[in-house]
């Protein structure tokens, strides 16, 4: 990191030398100076990339991905709308209704009596990596860091549904949160199939890494649908409704859908030729060395994470010769069904030069990270083989 910042400082000095210090250069220098000097004060968030302040969208820098559990202040935040302006745990109620025998209204205290189950889950925004799609597509332009892993705890959703008694007509389960909707924007409501809702690992989470959820992560309770896109895990949960069919609304269609068949990049896709996004795909990411790093060591630790939604990571391979040869990375010992695996690879470059380090994951269902991600109009599930460019001297 120091070496990189030195390099940028040198580049900067070169930039301002001689004729560059003419009036025309002032705006770019100003931009540089402001970018270097101005960080945004943001309580309880730690050095996060600011994608948006209103609504709050924060991304983790890739160098944070070196621990199995992501500390909450370093965990990405995704909001479609304003966070609730008031959150009173004492007044909070969860309504459970729809296709059930006995509708329920639960306080936080009543919810906590329904038992606690913990799931270590890698939560990833469906749009993570969107900025890497070509042609570019609209939406928050996430880099690589709209992903994180935490231990989520709370009662099983299935236990709550069982208490309410799901009717045979109940096929989907809808979540509504307390996001505050601006203008005429459709409310953020989505549904998941009943099978996933009744899975023993699907939770109404009240805790994250052992502490009560923070406001940005859905206090006092959120859905936690492990292995699935982050949008399935509705925050500030206040209503659960069992439906006889998939919920109809903007965030089920056209939002969060994927083409049934590959399309040419840039092409429009007919709504009837898409399906709702569910589980995450196979993916690996290099957290070090940093892209653009200048390295002197003879032995270089390449490291990162890999995850595969509901599947397990089978292997991660590294290439430093443009994908001709792939070498197995060592997988970290910490593992959980829905969680990423840390990995590392000791690279011994035989000569100096410019290199591209690539990482490629394979999962237990045989899926392999592709060299090019499937383009789609909203830039979901970007999972191309990851790469960083480094200079070895």
């Amino acid at each position, binding site marked *: 990191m120091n070496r990189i910042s030195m390099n940028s400082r040198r580049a900067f000095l070169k930039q301002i030398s001689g004729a560059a210090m003419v009036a025309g250069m002032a705006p770019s220098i100003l931009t540089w100076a402001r970018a270097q000097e101005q960080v945004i004060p943001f309580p309880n968030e730690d050095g996060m990339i600011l994608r948006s*302040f209103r609504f709050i969208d924060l991304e983790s820098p890739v160098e944070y991905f070196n621990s199995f559990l992501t500390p909450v202040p370093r965990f990405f935040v995704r909001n479609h709308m304003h966070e609730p302006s008031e959150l009173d745990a004492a007044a909070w109620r969860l309504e459970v209704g729809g296709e059930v025998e006995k509708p329920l209204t639960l306080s936080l205290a009543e919810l906590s009596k329904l038992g606690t189950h913990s799931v270590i889950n890698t939560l990833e925004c469906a749009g993570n990596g969107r900025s890497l799609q070509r042609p570019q597509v609209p939406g928050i332009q996430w880099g690589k860091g709209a992903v994180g892993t935490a231990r989520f705890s709370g009662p099983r959703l299935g236990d709550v549904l069982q208490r309410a008694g799901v009717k045979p007509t109940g096929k989907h389960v809808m979540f509504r949160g307390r996001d505050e909707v601006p203008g005429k924007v459709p409310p953020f409501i989505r549904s998941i199939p009943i099978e996933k809702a009744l899975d023993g690992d699907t939770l109404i989470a009240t805790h994250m890494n052992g502490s009560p959820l923070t406001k940005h992560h859905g206090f006092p309770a959120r859905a936690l649908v492990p292995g699935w896109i982050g949008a399935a895990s509705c925050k500030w949960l206040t209503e659960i409704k069992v439906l006889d069919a998939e919920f109809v609304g903007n965030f089920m269609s056209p939002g969060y859908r994927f083409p049934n068949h590959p399309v040419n990049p840039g092409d429009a896709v007919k709504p009837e030729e898409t399906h709702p996004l569910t589980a995450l795909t196979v993916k690996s990411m290099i957290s070090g060395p940093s892209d653009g790093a200048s390295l002197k060591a003879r032995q270089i630790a390449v490291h990162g994470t890999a995850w595969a939604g509901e599947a397990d990571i089978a292997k991660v391979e590294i290439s430093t010769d443009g994908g001709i040869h792939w070498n197995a990375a060592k997988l970290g010992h910490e593992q959980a069904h829905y969680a990423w695996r840390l990995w590392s690879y000791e690279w011994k470059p035989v000569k100096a030069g410019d290199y591209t380090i690539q990482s490629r994951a394979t999962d237990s269902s045989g899926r392999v990270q592709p060299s090019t991600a499937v383009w789609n109009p909203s830039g979901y599930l970007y999972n191309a083989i990851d790469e960083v460019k480094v200079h070895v001297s």
Partner: protein
Amino acid sequence: MFRRGLFSRAFCQIVAISFLALTSSLLAQKAVPAGVNADLPAGPMQAKATTACLECHEARIILQQRLSKGAWTKEVDKMTKWGAVVDPADRDALIEYLSANFGPEKPPYQPQKTAARMR
């Protein structure tokens, strides 16, 4: 480490320019900390785009996009449906303004960071 004379002079100029910019933006934004608010770029549609778009979300959501005119057209029409107040007479000019400033050929947006606290 640095070519001292040159660096000092440049540094003073940067400080002076930054100070002026920060002061003026602080005055404009009143009590909001410097850098929190971002502005849409200058242009004939700046004021109308600010009113239409920034009522519901902030400028960074626009500043980071790199879209074709066709994609901007879809966005403007979607947002108008969702409550953005755009006079039909201004629609095309708004699309033109967004396409001209945030087209695919523009250099990547450089985001800011939140302050670091765990070290």
